């Protein structure tokens, strides 16, 4: 019986669809721990206002992956600073993608502190929020951050090392630092690189350096900006290394009424560790070594080099995992063998293996585990195995890259 239990999940079909309510506590449990909610779930105040279709969400996800692949293929150690004035047009040079992150947290900027809902992203270093004066800002629910209303705000000189550390920086007419964070479908954030107090849960981080975005455009929904959790010098992880020791953890909730957390500075019990790998050409991202995938308890017959060749990245901002085509085909075939009793349904965007479960109250899906270096096995929650847009379309929640070397 135990062996069978490890082979599959028995899923109540109702649990695959979004819950109609949220039960989120008002306060976090510790001074450096924040609640995490899904941007489009019931625990987000923006759930009804900013709810793109599943096709649009997956299209944005593919755009992000295209961008990551573009960076990997064209990696250089440092881009040229853009210079010039704040509102000068900046050429978009990196293709056609957008980084988007679907999980949000609430942080505070300034003194007295004001709250802002920002997406968090391990694939980005710089933190930014929309900022007064807003010459070109998109609609957000919260009032814009106004540095003139904060007693702890200070400018950063464009000659300072903090400014020069930015991937793309510039100098204003008053010699203050300008930043430019560009994404790829003409999405961007331009503004002043400043410092002010950051409130993270009940912790106060003085002189935190972030972007005060005066000119922002793109598919950011109605979030107030972005929190960068990357490995680079500008990220909150690097800036708070003395305070939190470069350790952070999170749990991303499934799209029901559960909540997650983002915590800086402490580990979590009962976790198994696999080595973190780095790529000097891609200094923002977190890499690790995926060595195998198992379906229903059986490892797929794949060469170990199928994953180690291209490398494996862990990214909080990509929605659907991408596998080499050879590995994806093996996974899909094993999954389909287990799902033969269910009628198939048309593909959903990048998801090509879908089922119509309209006539079922429970479904059985095989367990899937990702196995990392040192045999660290991550047996996926059922919400990580299937992506359900509606009962008539429950899809295997994996997609493939264009070729095995990508």
């Amino acid at each position, binding site marked *: 019986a135990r062996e069978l239990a490890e082979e599959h999940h028995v899923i109540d079909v109702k649990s695959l669809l979004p819950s109609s309510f949220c039960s989120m506590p008002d306060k976090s449990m510790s001074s450096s721990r924040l609640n995490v909610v899904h941007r489009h779930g019931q625990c987000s105040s923006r759930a009804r206002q900013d709810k793109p279709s599943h096709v649009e969400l997956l299209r944005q*996800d593919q755009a992000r992956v295209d961008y990551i*692949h573009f960076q990997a293929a064209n990696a250089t150690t440092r881009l040229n600073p853009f210079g010039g004035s704040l509102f000068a047009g900046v050429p978009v040079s990196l293709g056609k993608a957008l980084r988007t992150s*679907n*999980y949000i947290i609430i942080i505070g900027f300034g003194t007295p502190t004001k709250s802002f809902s920002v997406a968090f992203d*391990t694939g980005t270093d710089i933190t930014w929020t929309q900022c007064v004066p807003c010459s070109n800002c998109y609609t957000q629910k919260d009032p814009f951050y106004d540095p003139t209303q904060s007693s702890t705000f200070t400018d950063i000189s464009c000659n300072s090392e903090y400014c020069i550390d930015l991937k793309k920086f510039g100098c204003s007419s008053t010699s203050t630092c300008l930043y430019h964070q560009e994404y790829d479908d003409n999405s961007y954030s331009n503004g002043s690189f400043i410092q002010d107090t950051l409130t993270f849960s009940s912790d106060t981080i003085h002189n935190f350096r972030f972007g005060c975005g005066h000119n922002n455009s793109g598919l950011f929904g109605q979030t107030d900006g972005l929190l960068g959790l990357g*490995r680079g010098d500008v990220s909150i*992880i690097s800036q708070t*290394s003395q305070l939190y*020791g*470069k*350790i*952070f*953890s999170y*749990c*991303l*909730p*499934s799209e029901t009424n*559960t909540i*997650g*957390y983002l915590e800086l500075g402490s*580990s*979590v019990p*009962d*976790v*198994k*560790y*696999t*080595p*973190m*790998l*780095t790529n000097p050409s891609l200094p923002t991202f*977190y890499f*690790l070594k*995926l060595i195998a995938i198992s379906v229903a308890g059986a490892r797929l017959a794949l060469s170990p080099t199928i*994953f180690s060749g*291209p*490398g*494996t*990245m*862990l*990214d*909080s*901002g*990509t*929605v*659907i*995992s*991408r*596998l080499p085509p050879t590995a994806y085909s093996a996974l899909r075939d094993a999954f389909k063998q287990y799902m033969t009793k269910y009628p198939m349904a048309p593909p959903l965007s990048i998801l090509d293996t879908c089922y119509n479960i309209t006539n079922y109250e429970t479904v059985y899906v095989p367990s899937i585990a*990702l196995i*990392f270096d040192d045999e*660290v096995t*991550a047996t*996926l*929650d059922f*919400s*990580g195995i299937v*992506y359900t847009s509606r009962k008539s379309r429950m899809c295997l*929640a994996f997609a493939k890259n264009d070729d095995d070397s*990508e």
Partner: protein
Amino acid sequence: VVIIGNVQQRRFNIVYDVGNLRIGFGANGCS
């Protein structure tokens, strides 16, 4: 590159120990 996206990360406690260059996974998080 192979990318592990956030759908597959759901309900894991994931620890980024950047100083010690290790990443931890713990199941049944977000409870």
